[in-house]
């Protein structure tokens, strides 16, 4: 297992390097101009100066290696320094990946945005799992019952209605008509007592529910299908024939075996938490990682988009590995060595 993990980790290095080159090249070679969104009243000579000041004068390959150095060496060092308060080497003159639009280090922006993304999107994922697993289990156990039909109907809704519609619907109902919940997320809000905690719950309610509906629909369908596969297996019949209580049969034997594929699905979904729910963040102005990516794309802030995309790539590679390893842990029949 350990050897397998080490081998996979080593293989992921060239994979990530290739990804980094593709990400950089795709974004760099795409037709876009960081000064495109500036007012037309700014004359072309000034635009050219802005472009040069952003480092666009250098050839592509040099910019790639510079970016790689900044991303792989300078940024982790800077983050380490900020966390520990130490000074490592010549940190004053270390070049960091600077966002073109804000002219500030990209990692600082990401660190600033992470809390709200983890709170809202992460919480929605937790809520989704908590709802989806029991829903899937009961739906499968009582297949074609009224509960199953309703559950199927709701998860179909969650599947097919895009979040920009459910989000808007919730805003119209709860903010405009009833006036119960805020439609705009306050990222500066600090939880310090019960009142502020209650406000945090209120402002998280709508974005979390919108995302949870979409996620829960998917996971509950997986759960249901996996349960149905297992419920007809021979070992279940054997357990029942031995007179094991129905509760034990379902919750201990069937559920455990059915969870194996579902856990991998859940693990593979974790990188999307960091990716933020781009649309939902935009609707409720959660302004997390997803919203950061969107503003980066809109303002042709290429260093920001390159860095975020590459971070997502790393997360996906890592969580793929974790999912594979988890698979082996949950199912002792699977051995990699």
């Amino acid at each position, binding site marked *: 297992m350990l050897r397998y993990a080490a081998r996979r980790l080593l293989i992921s290095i060239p994979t990530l390097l290739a990804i980094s080159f593709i990400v950089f090249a795709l974004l760099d070679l795409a*037709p*876009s*101009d960081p*000064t*495109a*969104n*500036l*007012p*037309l*009243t*700014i*004359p*072309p*000579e*000034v*635009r*050219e*100066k*802005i*472009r*040069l*000041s*952003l480092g666009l004068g250098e050839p592509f390959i040099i910019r790639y290696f510079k970016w790689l150095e900044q991303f792989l060496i300078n940024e982790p060092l800077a983050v380490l320094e900020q966390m520990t308060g130490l000074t490592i080497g010549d940190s004053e003159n270390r070049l960091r990946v*600077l*966002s073109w*639009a*804000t*002219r*500030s*280090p990209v990692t*600082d*922006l990401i660190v*600033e*945005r992470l809390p709200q993304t983890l709170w809202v999107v992460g919480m929605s994922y937790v809520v989704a799992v908590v709802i989806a697993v029991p829903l899937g289990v009961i739906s499968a156990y009582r297949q074609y019952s009224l509960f199953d039909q309703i559950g199927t109907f709701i998860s179909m809704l969650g599947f097919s209605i895009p979040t920009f519609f459910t989000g808007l619907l919730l*805003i119209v109902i709860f*903010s*405009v008509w009833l*006036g119960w919940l*805020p*439609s*705009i997320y*306050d*990222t*500066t809000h600090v939880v310090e007592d019960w009142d502020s905690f209650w406000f945090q719950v209120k402002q998280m309610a709508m974005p979390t529910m919108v995302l949870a509906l979409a996620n829960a629909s998917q996971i509950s369908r997986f759960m249901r299908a996996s349960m149905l596969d297992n419920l007809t297996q021979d070992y279940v019949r054997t357990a029942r024939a031995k007179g094991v209580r129905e509760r034990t049969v379902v919750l201990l034997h069937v559920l455990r075996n059915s969870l194996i594929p579902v856990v991998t699905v859940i693990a593979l979904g974790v990188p999307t938490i960091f990716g933020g729910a781009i649309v939902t963040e*935009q*609707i409720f*102005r959660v*302004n997390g990682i997803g*919203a*950061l990516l969107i*503003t980066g794309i809109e*303002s*042709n802030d290429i260093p920001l988009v390159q860095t975020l995309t590459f971070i997502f790539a790393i997360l996906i590679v890592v969580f793929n590995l974790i999912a594979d390893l988890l698979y082996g842990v949950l199912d002792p029949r699977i051995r990699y060595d």
Partner: protein
Amino acid sequence: MTGLKHLLAASTALAFCAGPALAERGADGELKIIYWQAPSTMNPFLSGGTKEVEAASMVIEPLARYSNTGEIIPALAAEIPTLENGGISEDLKSITWKLKTDVLWSDGTPFTAADAIFTWQYCTNPEGGCAQGAYFDGVANMEALDPHTLKITFTEAKPFPYTALVGSESPIIQAAQFAECTGSRAPECTEQNFNPIGTGPFRVVEFRANDVITLEANPNYRDPAKPAFATVTFKGGGDAESAARSVLQTGEFDYAWNLQISPEVLNEMEAAGQGKVVVAFATSVERILVNFTNPDPALGPDERSVWKEDGSNAHPILSDIRVRKALSRAIDPVILTEIGYGKTGRPTCNVLPGPDIYVSTANEACKTQDLEEAKALLDEAGWVPGPDGVRVKDGKRLSFLYQTSTNAVRQEFQAIIKEWWSEIGVETELRNISASVFFGGDPNSPDTFQKFYADIEMYTNNFSGVDPEAYMAQWTCEKAPRPATQWQGENINRFCSAEYDALAAEFSRTAGLEARAEIAKKMNDILMQEYVIIPLIHRGGTSAHANSLGGVLINDWDSELWNIADWHRVK
């Protein structure tokens, strides 16, 4: 908590003031503003975007600014220099600003002419990539005659000298704070760029790029009774429609900026009664441009849409004024305004729609559509209807490629105009290009508005400030984009007229508002009567504010937040 502390400090300070104070600094609590495009920095010199300029205008100020009527009013200057009061020299080559003597920066240090001079040096540093460099064009030198007198000399006579350090796009930053941030170091000064020290009514408490800015009343602001609000929360992100909703329907915010949304939706939201939609008109005009050069794809890169001095590469069809006029006569700007803009736009027949003194009244006929006249003009030009309704002449079809940027309203306009033109026998091929490419200015892209590889294109342009000299000079011959200029240049039409060039030269030499207005009108009328440009809509800046917010005077000549010091809660 800190807000409360400052509120207390401010009220203690006020207790020492003699006389009854009508208003009190910080008495009205929190002001919540929403800009759906979030500011990415507080340094307008490094961004140039409207959102950054407006956010910064709460903190840093220029010498003078423009009021909601387009009138120039002093901010950090004690008075506006003119020829009459001796502030502008007789030869028009220098201007001397007297500064207010009692102004303090928010850190308590005094504001002097040295800060103004530093700002000029900061922005004109060739390595700094300053986005507002054009404001300092023609400035030869700045010197401090004494700490509160600033003399600006120009390289040549400048009939309109209110450019450098005037208006929200050219504010003054503190020399002490930015001393280490000049040239190539400018972008690295994140702390300074996010938290500039200013003289304005508010100062930054926390800046979160592209998200939210928290500000509080500047304790050293020169008017002890202002601002009425103790704190400002300036939230960004999302889209225009939900920003409007948060002010007009849910009442979560007090002020929302730039609400370009469909007129019906906006009216419906306003009907909820929580707030008002306000519109200000300055110089933005949505226009159709006619290409005077031949954009035939069969031509090589040095020929296609390239202006030749001898006029050899003229557009085969559109160089006939009758065709251009027919295209204009077939358009109804009144209907287009109703469909696309509602009360946030008004039909116009001028490419120079303001300030009022510059507005020509000679072209009003364009507001009434006349399809019969358009048909007659095409008949006269020798274009006869072919078998499929499209006019032909010498085996050529009367067919145009009409391009614009991707935008719902623009595509709707394209469809409507195509329909009108088909009624007079003109065939139109429509094309839309992503805004970042279209306005991107990449000389290697065939799809930029400068390259104009089409017969007709549509977009909005404007000029900032109140003086149209540079704007009207765009249509002089040598400003045509071409390979020799890396496709840069503002004469997108490639229009060339000796008479127009002569007027532009005269404009740059003439002083005195009346005389300048006369020339500007003449230039506008040439462009209109030659049908170089078909103006459609005079577009306004649209914002919304809560009914409980008082003092808002929406302004499209300067930052919309130009008078935020006077904003208050209506009791």
